[in-house]
């Protein structure tokens, strides 16, 4: 096992009865990085996070968190983790402050109250309100503050911006960046690809309990297809273009305008186009969302 890794899992498996939730998850998260964990509902994101916290026990495989075995050294591991569950439930009888104090006491008061208050202030969270009177978004803010307040070495955040308005989402992303700047590793799951694209150093895509791709978000985008629209002065012979490796003709409306799919880099296409009278050229870059959906095309087809 590698100590430069904050999280390392190998062939992690977990089933609920006969339903396999994890079917051999291999994952490596480096210390100090922000790692986005993507996948639709039921793909195994939450199960993976709960295994890391020793809330559930895997059926097979190995896992290390911050260099330790979370089953054997669960307290030591969790002392260094800030966790935000996807389905956050808090004791309704507490005020916000009492809830935060309770979690602080469970940590032996090793929490940064000044930072906690600052976070609550930035998130417009009133510490005197009762949990039972809070909206879903405000409860989420309590969860975020309790996760970040101990300034942990590892943040496990399951859908951290769920239920928050766009302004508050930005505040949470800012807090995650701050945690990273202070040396924390952030492992977070999300459906919101725009935020993953915005803050993640790397993303892992999980599909049916298996991690199918790990890459940096930009590399994923760069590696994927681009859509190129070219308008020429007059209709041209396109054979020189379509023979290029990775280039596919999608549409040729009047011979003077073409729509191409380009896999990989654009170098050869641009050099070839230089020989033709080009009026204009547009390139559409796929969003991370479009790339993400290509991994689940089979699932969606099956669902239909």
């Amino acid at each position: 096992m590698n100590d430069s890794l904050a999280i390392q899992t190998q062939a992690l498996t977990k089933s609920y009865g006969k339903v396999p939730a994890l079917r051999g998850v291999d994952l490596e998260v480096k210390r100090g990085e922000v790692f986005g964990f993507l996948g639709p509902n039921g793909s195994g994101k939450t199960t993976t996070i709960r295994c890391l916290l020793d809330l559930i026990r895997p059926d097979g495989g190995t896992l290390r968190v911050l260099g330790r075995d979370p089953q054997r050294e669960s307290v030591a591991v969790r002392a260094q983790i800030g966790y935000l569950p996807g389905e956050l439930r808090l004791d309704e009888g507490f005020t916000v402050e009492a809830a935060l104090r309770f979690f602080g006491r469970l940590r032996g008061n090793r929490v940064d109250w000044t930072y906690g208050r600052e976070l609550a202030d930035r998130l417009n969270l009133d510490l005197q309100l009762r949990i039972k009177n809070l909206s879903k978004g405000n409860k989420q803010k309590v969860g975020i503050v309790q996760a970040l307040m101990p300034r942990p070495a590892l943040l496990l955040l399951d859908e951290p911006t769920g239920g928050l308005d766009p302004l508050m989402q930005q505040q949470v992303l800012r807090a995650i960046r701050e945690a990273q700047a202070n040396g924390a590793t952030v492992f977070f799951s999300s459906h919101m690809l725009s935020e993953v694209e915005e803050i993640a150093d790397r993303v892992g895509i999980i599909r049916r309990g298996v991690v199918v791709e790990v890459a940096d978000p930009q590399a994923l985008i760069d590696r994927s297809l681009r859509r190129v629209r070219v308008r020429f002065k007059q209709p041209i012979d396109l054979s020189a273009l379509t023979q290029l490796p990775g280039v596919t003709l999608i549409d040729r409306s009047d011979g003077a305008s073409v729509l191409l799919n380009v896999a990989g880099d654009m170098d050869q296409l641009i050099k070839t186009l230089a020989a033709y009278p080009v009026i204009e050229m547009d390139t559409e870059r796929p969003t991370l969302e479009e790339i993400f959906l290509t991994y689940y095309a089979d699932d969606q087809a099956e669902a239909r």
Partner: protein
Amino acid sequence: MITIMRYALLRWRGQIIGWGLALAALSLVIAPLYEAVVQQRALIEGLLQSLPPEFMVLIGNLDRIFSPAGFLEVRYFSMLPLILGVFAVIIGSGLVASDEENGTLDLILAQPVCRVELFIGRWLAFSVALIGILFITWLGLVIAIRGAALDLDGLAVAYPFIGLFGLLSWFGGLALLLSLIVPSRRLAASLSGLVLVASYFVTTLAQLSADLSGLATVSPLTYYQGGGAIEGLNAGDFLGLLLMSIVFVMIGLWLFQRRDIRIAGEGGWRLPSLIQKTQTQ
């Protein structure tokens, strides 16, 4: 562990005070009746002689009602196991399962708290809550007997409460253990309540039928002295009940350490899926 205990007790503080005051108030209502019982002794004895012995057993051996200790046994201490048994099975079954079912356990166990600490902390809080309720109830009874014509020592009337603590620990322990085996806290509480009522009938009816004496030996209420402890606590019975409750708790702890923590609303067992299967077939 102190934090776990403290917060559990904070959560139950209303119940501790409420149950304690209600039972103390009950003693304040019942104790003054002793004077009337003594005054009407001849009349009541005449009535009792006309009753069949089975009826006498079922309504609580009223022939013992004329001594202060017997009066408290029949009119007060015989009722307490059933009344406080409800508290014991509800709180006992929810010590871990209620937080698990409402989803708050996930975040608690994501803190640097080991499962043993949480489990034992909650159990100790339950024991302290029982002691709190019994203490308030005892205080109320002491005040009641001082104000009534019951010539009893305040310390002596504490002994039945010690025995009751053993009995309630037994039921709380059973409810806790069942909550870790059956799919829901509610089912665990219902089953424990069923054992409580069954135990009451078995122990009571065993006085009438020798056929039930064997079954009565495994009934926890058989080892509860009730008001009889005013004349001396049977430490063996008390410790036996307490020891059994510790056995339940230890088995529960062993199960808790090995199980997956469920997410809020998640069912725990195969039974619901079996029912669904048979319905869809």
